[in-house]
């Protein structure tokens, strides 16, 4: 059963320039909410950004990880919203 810290470390290890904040919002180790900022997201659409994060977990999303709610942004976007 992954912890929020596991999820955070895996995202940050797999995606270039990623910083992740992850919350296990049910406490059950299977529903997570992640906010990810990554230089790798630069120039990508939201759909493409989310795909990069989902790809870190493969079949685990929808399997052991029932839900991974995402908010993603490239560093340059932070102050423009």
């Amino acid at each position: 059963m992954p912890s929020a810290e596991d999820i955070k470390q895996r995202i940050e290890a797999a995606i270039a320039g990623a910083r992740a904040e992850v919350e296990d919002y049910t406490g059950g180790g299977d529903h997570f909410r992640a906010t990810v900022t990554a230089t790798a997201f630069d120039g990508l659409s939201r759909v493409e950004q989310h795909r990069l994060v989902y790809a870190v977990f493969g079949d685990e999303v929808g399997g052991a990880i029932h839900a991974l709610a995402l908010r993603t942004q490239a560093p340059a976007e932070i102050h423009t919203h």
Partner: protein
Amino acid sequence: MSASQFDPIPMLQSEPDPAPAPSPEGEASPIREAIAQAISEHRVILFMKGTPEAPACGFSARTVAVLQALEVPFAAVDILPDPRIRQELSAISSWPTIPQLFVGGELIGGCDIVTEMYETGELEQALA
């Protein structure tokens, strides 16, 4: 909700054939073709768990609520009756989770993106 907001796709809601086998990656299957056709034939189509009247998952429910708040007519497909629908849909969209909203044949995103775009007003523009 009025009937016009729910446009069921009979082919995707029929009983599964006996002995279903997932088709190999990239190989055409009748279900995949039916999904692709539904996406091309409906400008706004939501693949969800349950129905707009009775969503079976909180994320699907929230996405339906956003579309209803914008008073957008949309087709809806319940992916739960046959696990192959979800397999084939995710193969088409490269998106692992449900719900999935398509507009004009393009994947807009799942619940998070739809909600975020609703909050920023981008969704209303995309649906206009």
